[in-house]
């Protein structure tokens, strides 16, 4: 089971995207756990649950550098979701993006 966690301000609009991503994952029988959280909870959740991939909503993209730096040692990929995919809530594209990140990350290990 891979964990893909999304963070935005209140976790509201990302939860909409999560729903779409889950639908795609279910359709293809992928064993992934996708969840959305407000970013104030990020630290506790990331250090405790060690997700395999972290995606940020484009509206909090200014957090990217700091988070990549902070969790470098934990070794999970952290990226910002493409704004257009985010906007049209394209669950398939975002899920593919996350899976690609996980695969690349595991190859580099």
């Amino acid at each position, binding site marked *: 089971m891979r964990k893909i966690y999304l963070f935005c301000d209140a976790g509201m609009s990302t939860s909409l995207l999560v729903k779409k991503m889950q639908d795609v994952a279910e359709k293809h029988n992928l064993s992934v756990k996708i969840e959305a959280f407000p970013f104030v909870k990020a630290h506790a959740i990331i250090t405790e649950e060690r997700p395999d991939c972290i995606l940020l909503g484009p509206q909090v993209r200014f957090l990217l550098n700091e988070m990549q730096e902070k969790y470098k040692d934990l070794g999970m990929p952290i990226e910002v979701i493409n704004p257009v995919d985010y906007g049209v*809530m394209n669950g398939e594209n975002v899920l593919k993006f996350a899976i690609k990140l996980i695969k690349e990350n595991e190859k580099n290990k």
Partner: protein
Amino acid sequence: MQRFMDSLEKLLMPLAEKIGKNKYLIAIRDGFLISSPLLIIGSFFLLVANFPIPGWNDFLAKFFGEGWATKLMQPVRATFDVMTILAVLGIGYSLGRQLDVDAIASSAIALVAFFILTPFITNFTPNDMEVVYEVKSIPLKWVGSNGLFVGMITALTSVLLFAKIVKKGWIIKMPEGVPPTVAKSFAALIPSGIVMVVFFIVKTLFEFTSYGNVHEIIYTYLQAPLTSLGNTLPAMVIAYIFLHLFWFFGINGSSVVGAVYNPILRVLSAENLAAFQAGLPIPNIITGTFQDMFATFGGAGSTLSLIVAMLYICKSKRIKELGKLSLLPGIFGINEPIIFGLPIMLNPIMLIPFMLVPTINIIIAYFAMSLGIVPLTNGVSVPWTTPLVFSGFLVSGIRGAILQIILFIIGVFIYIPFIKIVDRQYLKEEDRLQSEDSGDISFDSLDF
């Protein structure tokens, strides 16, 4: 134009980063999250007691007897009249968590520090007498909205100090042979002890001033000037221009600007609620409720108006699909799909109505209230996700609901010419064939 936008982004991004990551502003914002649901429920009791329908009072009096409304006030008092205590607890907890110290302990030390600064005296003048008695009590005057700024400042400073001392690891040296657990229990006393002594000294120093306590000074020189500045039309309009500029660059402007502006708006709402509760004339036009219920519909940019324009006017598949997708979230005030999907972000055509519609909403609503056409917001805490018409009715009665509908329709007409331009662009693009994304992968070839 491009160069102008680049330099504007260079100016706004670091600002958003500073505010968006500021521990203290986050602590304040999150701290209030703890009390919001309680204030909302408290509000409902007030609404039931003062429902904006003529004859409501007499109707219920038939069933529950005279004076039923007064009985319903206790849940209101238990939330609004002690809102600063709730805020102190919440802010202390949230900052403690961010600074990696025991959050409950932080919450408690913040409350104690606040109480040290608060004079435990209520002035009481009996009827027909001129003598003022000092009654020993926790004064409701300062634990409600009047003490909010002292509460915020105290919670932040006390927990910061507490965390600094905890991290320094100061302990009391115990002689050999004292069990370690006993030594630890003494160690836990030091951070709290220092915080309490420091706040006691602060309190004592303020007693030498002519104001007598911290509350009077902060209220007079900080809270009152800031709230009366916040309660002006230009303040609201300028705040909203900034808020929308942030969103235009794809940054959550509501959260950035709100971090600074919302505490002030909260006080203004609470003042209205206190007047509403007491049956006095309502003082403030600009409030948190005004912002949530009249400035925008469907999220920043008042994009619910835009969605309707998209669904009825536009012909391109992309806009029609996006309109359908965004309608339901939009009704509840969520509009990221529109901002990133249309997009409004970095789209100069859409910037004009995106900023214009909320500005017009604010100005019209302001004058509708200042001219007495629509009642001022009663300060009742309605969730910002409440759909329009309902929300307007709950805070300003039937006229509030009508004002919302009028503003919403004006918004649709302002958006139409602009969305038509975007629609024509997309129609042309759709006529051309799109090339397939080359970085595609298939889910079926995955092995996990």
